[in-house]
């Protein structure tokens, strides 16, 4: 087996495997090294399996509200083991799909743990191949796509203990559903697990150090989400600093400080979701002199690191820690390496939280836009005024648009409600095409759909809303 390649990709998550496919399409002889499972965290322990869990929770939730639709069902119940099994099956299916794609594109998959060594040109990749000793790969270019993992803070007990304190990983495959749960951190991961376990009936409290939940979202959306989740029975402690998380005889105890007072919360289980750290260790990056800043590899617009021939994409290269950002960078990076890409295009990256209700956003929040010195025009349209939403019984939430008043550029869009994660790409397309309010207004939205609220929110920003 030849060990000389045009490109070696380290890490087969949504950044790495997509980069490898694109490289193969462009005629590069490509190898991909994966230490665990093809598809990375996204397919195996993140995006995909959580969506399977959340769907189970959502359907179960709906069963509790069937009377809204004139329906009734006797004896609502769930089998937790089967819910988890289904989630694992979905992940496995997709991972097998990636294996197929690698084979189809004649990408050599190397099963092992990689580290880099200095060499003429791009660094050499030394792989500790599982149970087969070492193998050295040389390549003209190397892409680091090793991803990230849950941030832990051992000093105050915010680390998994293999039993009652979980990260996303343990939270995805527990033996039983907890009756009560503490979630530390109210970002997308924390909120999704909180939403899932609440659907199954757990008493869930989310603790957030910042003054509001979903801190990266638009403040208004955070507020609407907070109320919507509370209506579902979730409890929140915002502006609360965790000082210690410990195990008790029956579960866990969390000591927090809020408003100058100390308080202790107890529950059966706790999930630590306080952020993400890049997987930069064990790769030999320090020896190569790769520039690293706060746990992430520093890259330029073409995803190049400061070491010639070495690139980094996705989570290891910094936020936002999103699969689609990794894939996008992977393609752009490979096209740059192959010399086929045009100038780098900075496309806005949408973010989605798949809770009930869902949250989706892109671009600047209203506050960020103002902070950037923009004079803004803001539009809102609530789903309670949308025909399809009323018919479907999904009237919670709204669409909010933020335009630059000076140019009419759509600079941000923020949605909360049912299936908004399927709608955000409309705004993503508009922003990538550099639409102004005029093009969005001139676009015909099908009736009846929830997407009409997107149109109305744009109209509203310019005082032309129709159905309010």
């Amino acid at each position: 087996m030849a060990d000389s390649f045009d490109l070696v990709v380290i890490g087969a998550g949504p950044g790495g495997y997509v980069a490898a496919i694109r490289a193969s399409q462009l005629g590069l002889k490509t190898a991909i090294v994966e230490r665990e499972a093809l598809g990375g965290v996204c397919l195996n322990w993140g995006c995909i399996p959580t969506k399977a869990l959340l769907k189970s929770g959502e359907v179960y939730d709906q069963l509790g509200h069937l009377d809204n639709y004139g329906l009734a069902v006797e004896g609502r119940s769930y089998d937790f083991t089967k819910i988890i099994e289904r989630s694992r099956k979905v992940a496995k299916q997709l991972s097998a799909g990636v294996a197929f794609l690698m084979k189809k594109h004649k990408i050599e998959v190397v099963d092992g743990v990689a580290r880099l060594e200095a060499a003429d040109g791009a660094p050499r990749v030394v792989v500790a191949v599982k149970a087969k000793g070492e193998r050295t790969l040389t390549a003209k270019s190397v892409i680091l796509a090793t991803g990230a993992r849950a941030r832990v803070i051992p000093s105050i007990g915010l680390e998994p203990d293999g039993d009652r304190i979980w990260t996303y990983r343990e939270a995805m495959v527990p033996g039983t559903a907890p009756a009560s749960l503490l979630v530390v951190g109210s970002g997308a991961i924390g909120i999704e697990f909180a939403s899932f376990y609440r659907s199954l009936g757990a008493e869930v409290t989310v603790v957030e150090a910042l003054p509001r939940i979903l801190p990266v979202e638009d403040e208004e959306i955070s507020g609407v989400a907070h109320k919507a989740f509370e209506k579902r029975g979730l409890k929140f402690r915002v502006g609360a600093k965790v000082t210690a998380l410990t195990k008790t005889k029956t579960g866990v105890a969390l000591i927090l400080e809020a408003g100058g007072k100390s308080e202790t919360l107890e529950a059966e289980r706790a999930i630590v979701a306080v952020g993400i750290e890049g997987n930069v260790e064990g790769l030999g990056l320090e020896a190569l002199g790769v520039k690293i800043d706060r746990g992430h590899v520093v890259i330029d617009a073409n995803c190049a690191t400061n070491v010639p021939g070495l690139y980094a994409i996705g989570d290891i290269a910094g936020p936002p820690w999103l699969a689609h950002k990794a894939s996008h960078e992977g393609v752009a990076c490979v096209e740059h390496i192959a010399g086929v890409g045009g100038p780098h295009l900075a496309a806005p990256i949408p973010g989605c939280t798949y809770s009930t209700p869902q949250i989706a956003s892109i671009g600047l929040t209203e506050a960020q836009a103002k902070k950037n010195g923009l004079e803004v025009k803001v539009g809102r349209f609530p789903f309670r005024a949308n025909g399809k939403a009323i018919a479907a019984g999904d009237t919670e939430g709204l669409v909010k648009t933020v335009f630059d008043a000076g140019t009419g550029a759509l600079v941000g869009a923020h949605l909360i409600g049912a299936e908004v994660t399927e709608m955000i790409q409309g705004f993503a397309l508009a922003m990538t095409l550099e639409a102004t309010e005029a093009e969005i207004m001139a676009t015909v939205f099908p009736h009846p759909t929830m997407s009409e609220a997107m149109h109305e929110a744009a109209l509203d920003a310019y005082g032309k809303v129709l159905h309010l």
Partner: protein
Amino acid sequence: MSTDVLMPALSPTMEEGTLAKWHVKVGDSVKSGDVIAEIETDKATMEVEAVDEGVVEALLVEEGTEAVKVNAPIARLSGGEGATAPTPPSRPVASHPPEGGDKEVATPTALSSPSGGGGPRSGGGGDTAEKPAGDRILSSPLARRVATQRGLDLAAITGTGPHGRIILRDVEAAVPSAKAAAAKPSPAPAPKSAAAAPEAPRQVKSLEQMGIPAGSYDLRPMDGMKKTIARRMTDSFRDIPHFPLTVDIEIDALLAARAAINTLLAAEGVKVSVNDMIIKAAAAALKRVPDANTSYTPEGIAFHHHADIAVAVSVEGGLITPIVRAAETKGMAQIASEMKDLADRARTRKLKPEEFQGGTFSISNLGMFGIKAFASIINEPQGAILSVGAGEKRPVVRNDQLAIATVMTVTLTCDHRALDGAIGARWLAAFKSLIENPITLIV
């Protein structure tokens, strides 16, 4: 694949011409620049060059054929390099002549036409001919809007988006680079702009080529109004055989009449300006001398039913000519109020197209700037334009005695195709008489 060679428009107003002579025959190979035919118009005979390479497959129009419509296929080139020619143009059918004006050379496969003196026409034609149907500048909506807001010409901006699309960052980068040009010597963007702008009336040399170094000036891109003025004035001055007729007119009686009118009608809020009276007098003179209220068209001279007087109004960044319609039917008070409204809206650029397009006669008054006399450029398709100088006290000879009178000098620039000198002179005599005897304005 074969490509049709179309009848070229040798001037903006040309709609048809005579195919005087073929310089090639079927089977000849031609390459770009070869003279392939002579076209005769009412004005001149011109040689026509091939734009594409290829082999002459067919001559579709016989030598000596008259009235060949512009854009009608006249020959067919086949194969060779010609196959790389841009997409065949949509062909206006012969019975549907294109409107004059913008469409100098309407299609990419049309022939360029160096005129006898190597005049500017060849440049305009050649430019357009080299640019295929993709003349459209690819740009994002936001890029277009910001470019408009900043007065930048998209044609001068290089796109870095997909397919060379101009995106916001390109427009944003365009501003500093223009400024940077002033700071450090770099190729002036001027030639690029001129080459790429389809509106550019002709290929101009860059300032650098003409000895003005880059960095010694700031380049301010032209907005749509400036471009329109540049194109229309060039076309007019180049294509219209124009001549000026100048006359002095005493306006003391007019000034007295104006004072009387404004005093008597002050209670009604009427305030008539000298210019309003000139509009009225011009309209009345056009009614008396209808031969002067005409437009040249290839089909004949158009005698307009009404005197629609276009009045040049200076606005920020250019000028515009709002129109007082059927001014011969309107009283001075009405003209005054209409003009005030039109001028106000002209300055805020709120005029509707129909309010500044389609007059039959123009007036340009630079009297308020102290200009004594000037000759304006005709506003196509009008037959004439009146240039009004400042009214000033001058010595005049009256009964062989020197006397003082307030005199203004006016110049009528005429399109010789529409009216000749005698008609212009008759109109000026009528106008002078109306101004000097303002009471007749009420007749």
